[in-house]
């Protein structure tokens, strides 16, 4: 089985979010970038398929050279090869078109992407990629088993979960549950050394127009101070009469 894991290069969850150039660009100054958490759960599940079922695992990112350390980290965790499509990730649709090209050329059976990235929260790349490549698609996937070409997946739904049967080729929008937090791997020195000599292919982008573009960013309006109360009578009164939520 050939697996492709899509890796987004995103600001660490503790990052302060600021914008520059007249609020049109994300300010990367002082920001630490990481593998998108939803993608890391997928990558770790892919490692299981590699170790238990002999799958090969490639990782891919659409982005500039600044994203290569994030791909190297994925190689250090255990992916075999990395691909970087050399174009800025502008909108989800164009990223999905770039990835579709990689999937077609690489003949992957299973593509695992995160349910959404924690920066733009678009949640559209896995579904679009599946639709463009004609693969089956399971979103918000919290469990994935593959036997031959038969797939059993569990999907999180509002208020519960749903067990699905499908087959390869498949695209998965993954999240926590594919593996547990405690299963995530911190690259060890050997992995980091090996990652340096693993292939990282830089691929020129396919033609793909962006269908959406950000005109400007805004930050939420500053919030008023918290109203502290010292008893539950006052709290219930305020929630009823002032906030009108109960």
């Amino acid at each position, binding site marked *: 089985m050939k697996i492709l894991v899509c890796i987004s290069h995103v600001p660490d969850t503790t990052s302060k979010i600021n914008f520059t150039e007249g609020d049109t660009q994300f300010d990367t100054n002082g920001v630490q970038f990481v593998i998108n958490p939803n993608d890391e759960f997928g990558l770790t599940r892919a490692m299981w398929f590699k170790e238990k079922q002999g799958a090969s695992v490639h990782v891919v990112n659409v982005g500039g050279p600044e994203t290569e350390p994030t791909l190297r980290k994925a190689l250090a965790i255990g992916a075999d090869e990395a691909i970087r499509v050399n174009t800025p990730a502008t909108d989800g*649709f164009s990223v999905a078109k770039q990835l579709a090209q990689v999937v077609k050329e690489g003949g992957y059976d299973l593509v695992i992407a995160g349910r959404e990235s924690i920066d733009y929260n678009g949640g559209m790349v896995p579904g679009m990629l599946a639709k463009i490549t004609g693969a089956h698609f399971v979103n918000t996937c919290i469990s994935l088993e593959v036997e031959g070409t038969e797939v059993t997946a569990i999907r999180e739904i509002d208020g519960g979960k749903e067990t699905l049967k499908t087959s390869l080729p498949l695209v998965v929008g993954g999240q926590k549950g594919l593996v547990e937090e405690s299963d995530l791997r911190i690259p060890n020195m050997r992995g980091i050394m090996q990652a340096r000599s693993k292939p990282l292919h830089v691929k020129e982008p396919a033609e793909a127009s962006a*269908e959406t573009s950000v*005109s400007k*960013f805004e930050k*939420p309006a500053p*919030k008023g101070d918290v109203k502290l109360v010292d008893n539950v009578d006052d*709290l219930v009164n305020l929630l009823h009469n002032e906030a009108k939520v109960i």
Partner: protein
Amino acid sequence: MSVLVYTESEQGKFKKIAQEAVSYAKGIADMMGTTVTAVSVNGEDTASLGNYGASKVLEVNNDALKNFNAEAYADVVAKAAQQEGAQVVVLSSSANGKYMAPLVAVSLEAGYVPNVTGLPESTDPFKVKQSVFTNKAFAVTEINTPVKVIGLAKNAYGVKENDTSATTEAFSPEFSKGEIEVVSVDKATDKVTIADAEVVVSGGRGLKGPENWGMIEDLANVLGAATACSKPVSDMGWRPHSEHVGQTGKPVASNLYIAIGISGAIQHLAGINASKVKVVINNDPEAPFFKAADYGIVGDAFEVVPQLVEKLKEFKSQNA
């Protein structure tokens, strides 16, 4: 030309997010000088969608669509959009809405913007505001394609009455279910889900252990609320992952969010930020949550929460 809206139902009943989506679609239609067509899959009483602004409802009634199937539902919506010549397609941000929207967008070669928080700033060019960076910021995004797909953020617009008389029309498009089969659905029917809840009661490490969740559930019961928890609590296995709210867990956009014994890590606050009113109960006055909350009590949760439950019971019996 029209605005098409997909209206989600469960066992025939339209969800509140469906009413909200129709209300929102009506707002866009008014800006564009056109009308709203709703599409419903196995929904009952479809004419009721007129109350929120639909002029026409395309009714799909088909047992083959009893279980949600993203590919088939997306086909239905895309075909409805084509038939109606829709310029804008509106979907909700439910698990199913987010599953099918990207498929609809590809079929219609349409730009898709999710997590939209309000009516467009302009319709020509078409610019909408969406939340990004898990509610830490907003982006005003322009959609450049002739057809636009909008994912409406939950509880962002609200349900608005727009008395319109809706005509209904049977609609039986061709669709493909792909090769995905639902084997089983495991869903508690007696519990309020975090996705649907108007009130969410959430517990953190300050509660010291899973055995102390009884009072959280008591509080949730009296408020008709869903229960949730912070990331450490789900990581330690005190509560199921499905209750984890925050940046890497579930987003919350309820009317009222009550955080008990949660310090308020930046990732947690990001995930619950879209809630309208936030209350914190914590014994540490320095907890970051107090900076993000609207109301707070500095005190021991083990004393305050049972008092709050009693007070709310009394309040509910007086205001019933």
